[in-house]
């Protein structure tokens, strides 16, 4: 038996995955685990590699999902992203997107995408 919030997170990732497929991205990997971080969805948006971090929240939470990715998490995503590109040998451009999934009480959901969240800021 999984905890309820983990269950919800799993659902959110599935919703996000189908969302990006609808956008026309090709999903390469899901839940790639590295030491110090996990990549939820790795996909190809035409010629750019996208590392998508999925955040799921139930409706009514004070803080929206995208807000919970702070500098520390972003740093981890950048490091894991580098490990991933090194591992796969990807030499083209890549970026980090946040997909914020909100579960509503009536069983429906909404999803919002934040593109290229590092925006040129430097993360070592």
């Amino acid at each position, binding site marked *: 038996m999984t905890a309820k919030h983990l269950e919800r997170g799993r659902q959110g990732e599935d919703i996000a995955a189908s969302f990006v497929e609808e956008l026309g991205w090709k999903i390469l990997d899901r839940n790639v685990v590295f030491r110090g971080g996990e990549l939820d969805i790795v996909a190809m948006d035409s010629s750019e590699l996208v590392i998508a971090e999925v955040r799921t929240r139930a409706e009514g939470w004070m803080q929206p999902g995208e807000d919970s990715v702070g500098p520390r998490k972003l740093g981890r995503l950048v490091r894991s992203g580098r490990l991933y590109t090194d591992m796969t040998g990807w030499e083209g*451009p890549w970026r*980090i997107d946040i997909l914020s999934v909100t579960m509503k009480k009536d069983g429906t959901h909404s999803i919002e995408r934040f593109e290229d969240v*590092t925006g040129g800021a430097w993360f070592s």
Partner: protein
Amino acid sequence: MNGVWGITLRGMEARKVEVEVEIAGGLFAISIVGLPDAAVRESKERVRAALRSLGLAVRGRVAVNLAPADLPKEGAVLDLPIALGIARAMGSIPDIPPGIFLGELALDGRLRGIRGAVAAAILARDSGIPLFVPDGNLEEVSLVSGCSAFGAESLEDVFAFLRGEKELKPAGEFVPSSGTCSPDPDFADIRGQAGARRALEIAAAGHHNVLFTGSPGSGKTLLARALQGILPPLSTDEFLETALVRSTLGIPFDRGMKPPFRTVHHTASIVSICGGGSTLRPGEVSLAHRGVLFLDEFPEFRRDLLEGLRQPLEDGRITVSRASGSVTYPCRVLLVAACNPCPCGWAGDPVEKCTCSVPELERYQRKISGPILDRIDLHVPVPRLLPEELVAVEDTGAEPSSAIAIRVRNARELQRKRWAGTGFSCNAELPERMVKRSLMLSADVRPFLSSMAERLRLSGRGISRVLKVARTIADLASTEKVQVPHVAEALAYRDGGGRS
């Protein structure tokens, strides 16, 4: 990879900067190398937003190299070449033809006016390549004849031009504004002061320095301001020189050919007057080039500041040297200084009594050193008018500025014609070696001058300055030779007229 040319300012001179861009894979980041200052480093945000406004999303790791690597780059003027370099590296625009591109980008892709466009135009003309500037700079750039310049309103315009979809606006012929404004104050409104009026006429005609000495309220400041109205208009070359200094500082361009008139308060620092700072900016003395530098309350200025003006007043050029380099600025100024005769202000007044002690008086007069006084050709006492003269309501009948201006202009024309080909435009500019040879003195001037020089203990510089003033007086009288009366009048204005 082909580079895009931009500029950076080094003093008043524009230096070419080649912008090279390489885009590699990776997380988006822009790094700029080649000694950028803060404004250049911040350009990455402006460039990214401007490119995005045109639908270009920059991806990957962008390396921008500004060559030559050891020349410090300053200002936002490199925004446009950096944006073009990135767009080129992304393959969004075709190869960029040779040309110098200048402009600061707004976040929506508009081009903002920049400092140093005139210097860039000179560089572009000398290199024989076209210049692309923001629309706001097109007018001042048109001053530089022989430079093919084009104005663009936005980054989109430049892209469209490079893709061959649109022509850019070429710089037209420069048209000086013809609008004349009435002088304020006008000489017609000034009562009395015949001596000072005459001195100002000579000063305006030959660009000679003036020192007014007089009691408080005697009209020194008024007279100095009235000088503005009788100065001859600048020639196109002179105007270009003043526009170059102004453009270096980013002062908005003004089409009027009026010579500059800079009033400086006595709290001014040396750097603000002489130029300097980490970026080696020109100072007030260079902004007043070909015009008037007015120092009211002359003895209140810091002594080292006044001493710092010695060499520039003599040479018409000032070299600012700092750890970051040295730059030479022009500063051919007409210095107008005004001071009181003593600390209380009433020495020599017919009515009020001076209350200064002798040591006070000496200390006050010591504030202005001999070398500075020696560089001032026209020492003019400005006596206070008596109350009955001042309250008189009837028209003064004094000559208006417009009439004086005509005489001054004619005298200046004579000088321009005489010195044509030598690079000088007025008598005061003349170097020592040319003074005695080319002033056309009449035969009896030499014996007269040598006897007077001995009696008045004139310095070598004093003699040549007297001769230059005499030449100007002769020009005002439209006489070909300098006669004894001209020299005598010039001598009367030497130090000793009002002070000591």
